[in-house]
Every structure is written in structure tokens, then in C-alpha cells.
């Protein structure tokens, strides 16, 4: 049986206790919420914190607040099942509810949290392996080794951002609140992510993600499309998050197009966004935006599926995402690729 290594476990009831415990624990400390990401990693000895501090009992982190003027604040420990089922989220941010429903399995959504999903460790099938397996390839730079086996000449790690909510939250312009013993800051979630598979977050280890702030929806149309082998369990190997504001005449006034699952961080495709803004959302523009995403998508061979095919899937997935925004009530529309 795969078992956890030994560690000290702390159960704070208040945020200030949690961050103080973390300050005391130092670099060997980690926060845990649902445990669905950390505990498998610990069993495989990818992560071996000496101290684990649970945030599951922090009541402040399990609240959802909304008002029409200021938007929504979601506590980081709100379970993914609650995100799927929350009536206000379903009404105001339907893309968030439906993206959350695409995460792993019902059981893991019961356990996993929105904060945990946003901070999900980057994934790579040279890294997400048992200790013995990794020993067989002489480890990799993300843990215990020297080299990136995906790109052996690369100085940096190419493990993949694999959260479904991250690209969507970036597209929606969400902010996150990070609290530590001496600091409390609210940053754009886009600035949370870093294009490095090891240091994949601009978050200090002692900072606790406490809240996700979503701006008022104000008619923004958002969708999330996920590519994976099976309808459950699987992480995205390509995610397309699109959030568009359309003016009354149908012209795109604002566009956020974010690709997930192909790089160490969500990839914002400005070229595609620029092609859409100021124009009606017609077939020609949609295809051009899809082409721009295809060019920017450069997945490597470290997830399920062949990387070339994953890259090619950027076109139809972007087209389908934008088509759904264009004609939300129509059935699925297909274009020849």
C-alpha cells in the first residue's frame, strides 16, 4: 500500500494561527486543504513537508459572498462540489460552475477545494511517479534530480499547469488574497502564475491563499473547454478559457483568451485577443483567433496524448469555445479545420 511519510500535523482554527504556524515551520511547512493534490505527491515522495498545516477548519475560508456591485468573494477552502452547485455561481458565473464540474471526479470534487485547484502542483509524467520509478530515470530537476527529461537541454522545468480553474479565473480577471504572518495582499490571479514548472507561483511558501475575488460578471460571456482522454479523472492536457464582452452591435469590446494545460503557467494569447477586439465575432475572426492560439500552443511530450495532436487541438477547441460564446443557444457548431 502507498503510505504517507511521517510529518507533523497542525490544525489551526484561525487564519492568524495558521500563518504563524507556517512562519514557525519555515521551509519545511506546507498548507493542505482537501489533500487531493498534496497527499498523493507525499505518498510518491515528490513532496515531503516536515509540517503540514490544514486550513480545512478555518471557517473564514469556507464562505461565499456576493453582491452585484462588487462581485463575488469565494473562500479558498470552498469545495469544488460547492462551486458546481452554488446557485449564485451557477447564475452569475456559469462557466466557473461548469469548469469546476469538469475537474477530476465527484469524489475528488467533494474533497478538493477551489484554492487547492488554483495552486495545483504542476504536472509531468516524468514527475508524477513513485519514488522507485523516478529513481529508475535518475530523477528530474523538479525533485531530487538535475535534468528536465522533457527537454534535456532546458535550464528550466516544463511541468504543466493542470488546473481547470486557473485559465478561466485568469480570463475572468479574478484576484487572489494572499495572507502571511507579516503581509496581506490582493493580486491579479494572472500575476500569481509563473512560467517555470518548479517555481510555478509568485507566492511565497509562507503565504496562505485565503480568497478569490471575482469581478461582477456584467454581461461578460465566458466558456471553458477541456481536452482530456476520459470524461472524468483526467487532468486537462489542453484547456481553452475565453471571456468576451460584446457591445450591443455584436462587436467584441474586450477579449481574454487563455490556454491551459500546455505550459508551466496559463498562456494568454494576446495575438488572438487583438484579432477579436473591435470586430464582430464572425467565422473569419474566430478562425483567425484559433490560428493564433494554435501558433502559441507549444505543448511538450509530458502528458497524455501525442504533443503534436494536442497542439492541433488548439484550433477546434478555440473555435468551439468562441462559437459557444457567439451563439450560446445554438447546438455545437463545427467548422472544417
Amino acid at each position: 500500500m502507498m503510505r504517507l511519510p511521517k510529518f507533523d500535523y497542525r490544525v489551526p482554527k484561525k487564519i492568524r494561527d495558521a500563518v504563524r504556524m507556517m512562519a514557525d515551520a519555515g521551509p519545511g511547512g506546507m498548507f493542505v486543504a482537501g489533500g487531493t493534490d498534496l497527499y498523493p505527491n507525499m505518498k510518491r515522495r515528490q513532496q515531503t513537508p516536515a509540517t503540514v498545516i490544514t486550513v480545512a477548519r478555518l471557517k473564514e475560508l469556507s464562505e461565499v459572498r456576493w453582491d452585484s456591485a462588487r462581485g463575488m468573494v469565494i473562500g479558498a477552502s470552498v469545495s469544488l462540489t460547492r462551486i458546481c452547485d452554488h446557485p449564485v455561481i451557477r447564475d452569475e458565473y456559469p462557466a466557473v460552475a461548469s469548469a469546476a464540474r469538469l475537474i477530476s471526479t465527484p469524489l475528488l470534487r467533494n474533497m478538493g477545494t477551489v484554492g487547492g485547484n488554483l495552486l495545483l502542483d504542476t504536472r509531468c509524467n516524468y514527475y508524477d511517479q513513485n519514488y522507485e520509478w523516478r529513481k529508475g530515470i535518475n530523477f528530474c530537476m523538479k525533485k531530487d534530480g538535475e535534468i528536465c527529461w522533457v527537454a534535456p537541454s532546458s535550464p528550466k522545468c516544463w511541468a504543466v499547469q493542470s488546473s481547470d480553474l486557473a485559465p478561466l479565473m485568469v480570463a475572468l480577471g479574478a484576484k487572489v488574497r494572499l495572507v502571511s504572518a507579516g503581509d496581506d495582499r490582493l493580486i491579479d490571479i494572472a500575476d500569481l502564475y509563473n512560467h517555470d514548472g518548479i517555481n510555478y507561483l509568485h507566492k511565497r511558501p509562507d503565504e496562505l491563499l485565503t480568497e478569490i475575488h471575482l469581478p461582477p460578471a456584467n454581461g461578460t460571456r465566458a466558456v471553458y473547454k477541456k481536452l482530456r482522454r476520459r470524461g472524468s479523472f483526467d487532468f486537462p492536457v489542453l484547456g481553452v478559457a475565453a471571456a468576451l464582452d460584446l457591445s450591443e452591435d455584436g462587436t467584441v469590446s474586450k477579449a481574454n483568451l487563455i490556454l491551459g494545460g500546455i505550459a508551466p503557467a496559463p498562456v494568454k494569447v494576446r495575438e488572438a485577443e487583438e484579432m477579436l477586439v473591435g470586430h464582430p465575432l464572425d467565422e473569419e475572426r474566430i478562425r483567425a483567433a484559433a490560428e493564433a492560439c494554435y501558433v502559441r500552443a507549444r505543448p511538450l511530450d509530458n502528458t497524455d496524448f501525442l504533443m503534436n495532436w494536442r497542439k492541433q487541438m488548439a484550433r477546434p477547441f478555440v473555435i468551439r469555445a468562441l462559437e459557444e460564446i457567439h451563439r450560446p443557444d445554438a447546438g455545437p457548431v463545427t467548422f472544417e479545420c
Partner: protein
Amino acid sequence: MAARKKQKVHIQFVANGEEVEVAFAPHKTLLEVLREDMALTGTKHGCELGECGVCTVLLDGQAVLSCLTLGLDVEGREVTTVEGMSVNGELHPLQETFADLGAAQCGYCTPGFLLVAQELLEKNPDPGREEIKEALAGNLCRCTGYIKIYEAVELAAARMRGEEAEPARETVYGYE
């Protein structure tokens, strides 16, 4: 021999409706505590990494994976395992229909499916086939092809709603 530092924690919780006290090493998961420290071996395991659904239990009525739940985290809470589904020897309707329709072949994934199905029927007494598939999508079965499991859930749901339901002919004899 020198006395070692005490290594076990001691907690109380409710297991299958009974208050229990148990002592275990603090890094143990609920799966290990149930099977190794409480002899509740009805909860099985297939990967211990959250990739199969076999070790499902109900925690305060919600289906969770015991392999990714720390034993320490159930202090003061209610845990239901497959052993707790039948009361005074009387099987839960789901257990009856799983047995009657051959939804348990090797039986190894069965406890997990039963508990997820129980959670589903408590939330939704009349789920459609697609809702059942969605709800059971976190549990793998390699024997049945899932079909007998759907049929067992549907039959149990009907009986739990008070209907006098019997399995369809094609469920047990095939199509004519």
C-alpha cells in the same frame, strides 16, 4: 529497552453509528485506520492515490476517498463504511439490488460504488441514467461494464421511493 516517545494519537469519532476510540500513528490515512486499526476491512483499496474510487467512505454523509483523508481529520465526525450500510442484519436496498442483479462480480469495487450510490440517492431519489453515470464517474469497475450497476441503482431507487419494482426482463435474460 529505552522507552520510545509515544507515537500514536488517540481520537474519538462515530463509525457506522457507534462512538469509537482508536489510537494510531498520526500519518495514517483513514483507509489505513479503518482496515488496520479497526479491522473494518470492507473498505478496499486499489491505488491509494485517488485514481480509482475503491476506498470510498461517507464522511458526515458525503462520499470521500479514505486513502486521501487523514485519520486525524475524522475526529468528532461520522464515518460510514460498507459495514454500516446494513442495519441489524437487514441489507440496504442498494445492497439487495447489487446482489440480485450481479452488480458485484469480483466485489472489490462494490463497497465504493454502494456508498457513492447511497450518497446519490439521498440527494436525488429519482436519478436518470445520465445522472447515475455522472455520479459514479469517480469509481472504476473492471468486471461489469457498469451496466448492472446502473440497473441496480435504478431498481433500488425505485424501491426506496416505495414502488414495487422488479428488474426488466432484458436485464436478467437479455434481449429477445
